[in-house]
């Protein structure tokens, strides 16, 4: 199913229920600087959409606009048939976006460092809990019940990401990899329809990266998720993405199947500069399978 989605060419007519998120010409300007310029992107339900690009290409800005941290200067973003942001200044706040079913992780981990792993996940469940402060004051049975259930579920989420038995550890005392997992658990706990992962494998060693990549893929199938994945590491993106968009200088320069994008001349230029791209063109061995040995980035291909 995912394969067919990935083959749908941009611009082709698609039933709107298969598109979970649509960004229409979104632009973000900081003062005079245009960080993201008129980017269109459709994300198909159940797919993993990769976004790549060199440093400063506007990936994270794009991401933050979807998540509601920045307001787009122009354009609009539609999530599950609802306009969540538009350029006219009407824009959802991050918490409203989360409530709608978009959860995220952060490039530079932003856990609640002094809270336990369990509490971090419980905050993730916030939007799915209903108890009011008044109920808490009166200690209504429904509130206690909800709290118990939430704790039970939170432990399950921790186990799911591989943090079994670490629920009571303070988040900042967890190892780096575990912190990344905890961030994902926290995001999953809100039962998102769309999960935004901002460089989930940054700072990991190759083995951890492979594990994380496999985990993302597994998660997507088991939890019926759609994933928007920003990555620096080409191997990760190319390995699991159904479709990849490439940003450069705030503009989308290419989009398509990973294999197509990888061969795209413009993309190689963006990553390597013109001269590098010419050299790379002579190399033919561009592979993209993470499981069968080292996949290659254009840089590697160059050597």
């Amino acid at each position, binding site marked *: 199913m995912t394969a067919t989605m990935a083959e749908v060419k941009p611009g082709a007519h698609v039933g709107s229920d298969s598109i979970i998120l649509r960004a229409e010409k979104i632009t973000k300007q900081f003062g005079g600087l245009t960080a993201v310029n008129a980017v269109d992107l459709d994300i198909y339900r159940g797919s993993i959409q990769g976004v790549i690009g060199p440093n400063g290409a506007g990936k994270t800005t794009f991401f933050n606009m979807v998540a509601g941290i920045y307001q787009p200067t122009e354009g609009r973003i539609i999530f599950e048939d609802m306009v969540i942001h538009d350029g006219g200044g009407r824009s959802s*706040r*991050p918490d409203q976006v989360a409530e709608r079913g978009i959860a995220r992780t952060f490039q530079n981990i932003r856990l609640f460092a002094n809270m336990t792993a369990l*509490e971090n996940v419980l905050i993730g469940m916030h939007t799915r809990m209903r108890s009011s402060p008044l109920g808490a004051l009166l200690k209504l049975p429904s509130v206690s019940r909800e709290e118990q259930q939430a704790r*039970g579920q939170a432990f399950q989420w921790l186990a799911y990401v591989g943090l079994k038995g670490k629920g009571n550890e303070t988040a900042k005392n967890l190892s780096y990899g575990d912190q990344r997992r905890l961030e994902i658990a926290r995001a999953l706990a809100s039962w998102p329809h769309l999960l935004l992962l901002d460089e989930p494998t940054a700072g990991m060693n190759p083995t951890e990266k492979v594990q994380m990549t496999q985990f993302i893929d597994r998660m997507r199938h088991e939890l019926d998720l759609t994933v928007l994945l920003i990555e620096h590491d080409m191997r990760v993106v190319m390995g699991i993405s159904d479709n990849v968009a490439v940003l450069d200088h705030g503009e989308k320069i290419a989009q398509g199947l990973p294999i197509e994008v990888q061969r795209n001349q413009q993309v190689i230029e963006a990553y390597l500069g013109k001269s590098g791209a010419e050299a790379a063109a002579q190399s033919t061995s561009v592979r993209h399978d993470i499981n069968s040995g080292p996949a290659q980035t254009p840089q590697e291909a160059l050597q």
Partner: protein
Amino acid sequence: MASSMPTAPGELASGSILQRIMSGRQENLLLCLAISVFALYPLVDELFDIGRLGSMGSIMIYVLLAMGLNIVVGYAGLLDLGYAAFFAIGAYTMGLLTSPKSFFIKEGYVPEWLQHFWPALAVSWVVAAIFGVLLGAPTLRLRGDYLAIVTLGFGEIVPNFFLNAEKITNGTLGLNPVGKPSTFTIFGHKFAFAPTDQDNWYWLILAICVLSLFMIRRFYNSRLGRTWQAVREDEIAAASMGVNLVRTKLWAFALGASFAGFAGSLSAAYFQYVHPANFEFIVSITILSMVVLGGIGNIYGVIAGALLIGFFDRILTEELTPPLNSLGDALSIDFLANHNLTQDKFLIFGLALVLTMLLRPEGLFPSARRKAEFHPEEDKISEHEQQQMYDIREMDEPAVGERA
């Protein structure tokens, strides 16, 4: 949910939950013990002829205030330098509802059933909370130190208003007398509240303190309490997890203010007097130094801080002044001979704040969490993020209703 998810959380959670219950039990046991000790104080006072029951009453009002401010400063991490404003609002609510000098009573605006202590106490709790929301709503999008100054501004405006709106508040003359609880009987003991019934007053204040303590504990241990922590640690991450920052902070402001409302109306009735000079900036700072010294965020630490500073302020300085003066006489040092320690308030509170921040920023009795927080890396939030996250224009009506 996927099949790979474990369905029985029991084995995972059991250890920790057991631990939690155990420590919870212990906590309650110790708490009961401490409350009994305080409840027995009037007997001790009488037995040993200490004669400090009156001071203990005002110290308990401090405790109430410190617990309330701790919600704002400790739990939600919002530095409020104008907390005395809510104290004043509570006191004036009580005064205006029950004092015969009140403009509203004279004009006959207050229904008869409301002109009594208990209904007025409840009303002042609510009124203070409402003002907490009113004063909080426009300011909560400000960054920490700006917020501090704006609250300070409110803390100056509110007593200034009470002082100058003479027609309503009787200005510098203040409101006197103020309603007090009517006599009631529990287990054959008659509780009367004449000015001489210091023990009954003390018990009343203590009872309200204990009630407030339990209320605050419940709030803190709820979903709301958890979001306070999250917002304090990382606003952006909290918002991205669906926490409504404005609402979370407003709850802290409202609840914090509401307990100051309790304290205000209690003190109005206790002293039978409401006067604008009782709500100056120094009051806000006194309460802040209690919270800071005791341990920001830990309610027991804060209570200890309040007792400590209250004891210092209300008892120790008075008790120590005569011996200090005689010492000065003996050594013929004029300064010591004539010095009155009760005038050293500013120095004491100032030093309490400075030394705590320098030597033990987490306070004397810190919560484990806050202790850790006082050694973090800098976290800069950009203006853009600020703007967007506090966009309260459409708080009730999100911009998402439109069909594509």
